């Protein structure tokens, strides 16, 4: 991009009133220093048209709108969103009559901001549907290699001291189609929507295990849910005694049925499947159970045909959520490139963005609390001059893990298994402004 191009944009209404700001280009194909984020009146993708025209030029005369002239609706018991945002929905496949209750719904990442996913839009994955559990009848049993097996009621558990932590949750199979030989024509939601972020409140699992008294020979906990599949996973005791919690609240309200009401296990940073929902049984043992979902599924077969079992932490990862797949840039000008980044092994320290397919990179601004194993929102301004571009983001975590390219990930892992994809996402922008998933 040349300085002349910048001038042209400046003359278009967006930037000329702030001509004192020197738009420092920090990487190829239009990336602008992140320090300009606050200085520019940036428009999100697709909404640039209105801000690039002066109101007077458009012949607008502002009037008092109708809703300012009559009383509005009353307060109500449980909130609803604007009828104008009801199009923001999770995406799920058609129900399979041969697999009742199986399936997933994906968060609309491209329509959300910040780093917390609303409970109604948090992704879901079920193996036998959502049970309708009466908390008064639900029990949590801790037994096996303990001094005293114990059973807890929901009411008992509500009296325990709790902690609140912000964490991401990601399905092991998220982004799995990117292992495939050809790039799927998808959106940030359809390709990457099995990740969400929330504040989880619950009881440190170690508190409850200590009360039952862990026997010295115990090495694993075997956790089972109360759904129709009685879904189970084995988790090493050392991890269970670390930052694992029995989660009772999500974003301040009781965990919803689709997320495990009345209680779920929550294993921070790890593949979502081990955060067993509708938790009803914890059995301590010397060996894992080798449940179906830790042998047949959720295992990673390598190119040498050996399969890795119990691969828990999710990789260092980021994805640009806007502009992203199937969006259209309607006008040239400055856009805010934004997305989310996360790591199962720490916090996000750095996100770099490229607009030229990885030839040059610029640091994005990371905002909000950069807490451990949580989503981080990143942003950087980008000047689109109508040319073709490939937008990418690359995350680095607090342990120094750098998000790999798709090519290096697939070369290393092969594609026999499609779990734990965390390669760099490439969104191509063509000269018409269409954005599409590509391998680059």
């Amino acid at each position: 991009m040349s300085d002349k191009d910048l001038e042209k944009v400046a003359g278009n209404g967006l930037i000329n009133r702030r001509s004192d700001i020197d738009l420092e280009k920090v990487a190829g194909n239009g990336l602008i220093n992140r320090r300009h984020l606050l200085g520019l009146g940036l428009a999100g993708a697709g909404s640039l048209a209105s801000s690039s025209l002066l109101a007077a030029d458009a012949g607008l005369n502002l009037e008092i709108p109708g809703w300012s002239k009559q009383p509005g609706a009353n307060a109500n018991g449980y909130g609803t969103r604007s009828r104008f945002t009801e199009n923001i929905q999770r995406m799920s496949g058609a129900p399979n009559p041969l697999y009742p209750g199986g399936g997933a719904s994906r968060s609309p990442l491209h329509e959300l901001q910040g780093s917390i996913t609303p409970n109604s839009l948090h992704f879901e994955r079920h193996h036998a549907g959502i049970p309708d559990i009466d908390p008064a009848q639900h029990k949590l049993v801790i037994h096996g290699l303990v001094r005293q097996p114990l059973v807890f009621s929901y009411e008992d558990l509500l009296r325990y001291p709790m902690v609140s932590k912000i964490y991401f949750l990601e399905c092991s199979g998220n982004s799995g189609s990117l292992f495939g030989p050809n790039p799927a024509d998808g959106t940030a939601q359809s390709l990457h929507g099995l990740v969400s972020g929330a504040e989880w409140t619950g009881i440190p699992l170690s508190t409850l295990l200590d009360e039952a008294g862990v026997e010295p020979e115990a090495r694993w906990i075997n956790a089972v849910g109360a759904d129709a599949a009685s879904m189970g996973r084995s988790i090493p005791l050392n991890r269970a005694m670390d930052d694992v919690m029995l989660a009772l609240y999500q974003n301040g309200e009781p965990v919803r049925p689709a997320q495990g009401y009345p209680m779920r296990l929550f294993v921070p940073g790890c593949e979502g499947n081990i955060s067993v929902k509708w938790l009803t049984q914890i059995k301590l043992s010397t060996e894992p159970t080798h449940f179906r979902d830790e042998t047949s599924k959720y295992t990673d077969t390598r190119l040498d045909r050996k399969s890795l079992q119990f691969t828990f932490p999710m990789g260092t990862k980021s994805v640009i959520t806007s502009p992203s797949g199937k969006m259209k840039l309607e006008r040239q000008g400055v856009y805010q490139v934004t997305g989310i980044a996360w790591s199962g092994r720490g916090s996000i320290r750095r996100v770099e963005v490229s607009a030229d397919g990885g030839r040059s990179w610029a640091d994005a601004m990371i905002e909000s609390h950069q807490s451990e194993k949580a989503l981080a929102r990143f942003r950087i301004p980008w000047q689109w001059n109508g040319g073709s571009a490939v937008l990418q983001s690359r995350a680095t975590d607090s342990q120094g893990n750098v998000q790999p390219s798709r090519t290096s990930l697939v070369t290393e892992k092969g594609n026999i298994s499609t779990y734990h994809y965390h390669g760099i996402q490439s969104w191509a922008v063509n000269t018409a402004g269409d954005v599409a998933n590509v391998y680059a």
Partner: protein
Amino acid sequence: MSMPNIIEKRNKLVALSLAIIALISFSSMMQAQTIGLGTPISESQLQGFDLIAPPNGSGYPDGSGTAVQGKVIFDRRCAACHAMDGSGTSGNTRLVGGNMQSAERPIRTVGSYWPHASTLFDYVRRAMPADAPKSLSGSEVYQVIAYVLFLNGIVDDSMVLNKDSIMDIDMPNKDGFIDSSQAL
């Protein structure tokens, strides 16, 4: 004894006393944090609740069955999804065949991939059939998994599967897995 030595000893004594006081107050604090609302229960009270069947054989019920018996159940309760011959109606429902060492991308099934026969018992008992999980008796589970093992050529159709004989079954891919649970 020289003066510095006495002072050193006295300091050590003070440090030890402080440590003991700290330990006592810490342990009383820990006791105060024990909420203790769980109700004691015995393992015998969990017999009908605990469905965990690990490879060490500790979770199998009584009962027994053969593949010949299992075919009757399979045809009626399982074949709609898994097909009469276990070849499945989708990639995820295929139960039979495959080879982990095949040149092309391996097809992973109970026969080619699953490392433990216990997993088959555990999963069928807790989650199958998908439209009526936990509706099979212990013997029916032995029968139907004997049939799935038979379809994979792992047992013959007259083998009586029970909590003892299941321990002798070697799954073809039993050495195919690497425990990564402690990987950082």
